[in-house]
């Protein structure tokens, strides 16, 4: 675990994953996220480098990209001066803004638990042909049986 991930966990952000993306096996980790790190190094696919290109066409070096739990691009930051206070502040602010939303999706009655009551409420939402953002687990804009299945999986322990 890197020093920075340690800091995030100390601040209560357990559900944050840090990955490093490189171009080659011998790419040097920059020293920002990777101090004391055993982060997974994911290799961008050569020659098209899709990870780099989908976020930073023409390639920005030492860029940090922040993705939400559903793949939404929340923010980017270029570490021109390393992982300094300003960079940490930006990243932490973005995480803080979206973290609760990610963790509590599925908690339809807002009691900070996900259980059978949320399933019942979710079915009621479907039967009433209504929409509830917390019940829309797959974030496709509608609440239907797929969301209920996902909720059941969470409760059964197949998810978090």
């Amino acid at each position, binding site marked *: 675990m890197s020093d920075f991930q340690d800091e995030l966990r100390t601040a209560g952000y357990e*559900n*944050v*994953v*840090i*990955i490093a*993306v*490189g*171009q*080659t*096996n011998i*790419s*040097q*980790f*920059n020293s920002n*996220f*990777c101090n004391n790190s*055993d*982060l*997974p*190094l*994911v*290799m*961008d*696919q*050569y*020659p*098209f480098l*899709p990870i*780099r290109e*989908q*976020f930073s*066409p023409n390639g*920005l*070096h*030492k860029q*940090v*990209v*922040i*993705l*939400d*739990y*559903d*793949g*939404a*691009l*929340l923010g980017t930051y270029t570490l021109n001066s390393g992982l300094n206070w300003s960079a940490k502040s930006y*990243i932490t602010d973005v995480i803080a803004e*979206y*973290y609760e939303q*990610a*963790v509590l*999706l599925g908690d339809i009655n807002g009691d900070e638990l996900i259980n059978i009551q949320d399933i019942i409420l979710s079915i009621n939402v479907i039967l009433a042909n209504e929409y509830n953002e917390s019940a829309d*687990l797959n*974030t496709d804009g509608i609440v239907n049986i797929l969301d209920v299945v*996902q*909720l059941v*999986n*969470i409760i059964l322990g197949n*998810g*978090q």
Partner: protein
Amino acid sequence: MNIFILILVSFLFSQSENCVASDSQPMDSRSIYSIGDTLSVQDQSTIYDVCNGNGDYQTGDSFSFIDLNGSQNGGDYKITLISMNATW
């Protein structure tokens, strides 16, 4: 002809330090994302090689962004920080 051979040799050697790109796609079929956009399921499903792993991922495993998508993996919600580390 010599130039062609030179280019070919350069190309082959340039790949030697990269992981195998099993399903790499040309960029003209891919999306470019800005803040606020959501990666398509197709792009999230693209498989990459893990060349230095620990924790949930070990060296030799495969990785895709959809692994961390709570809506697709059964509710394991993760926010992901991607640190670009290559000198592009």
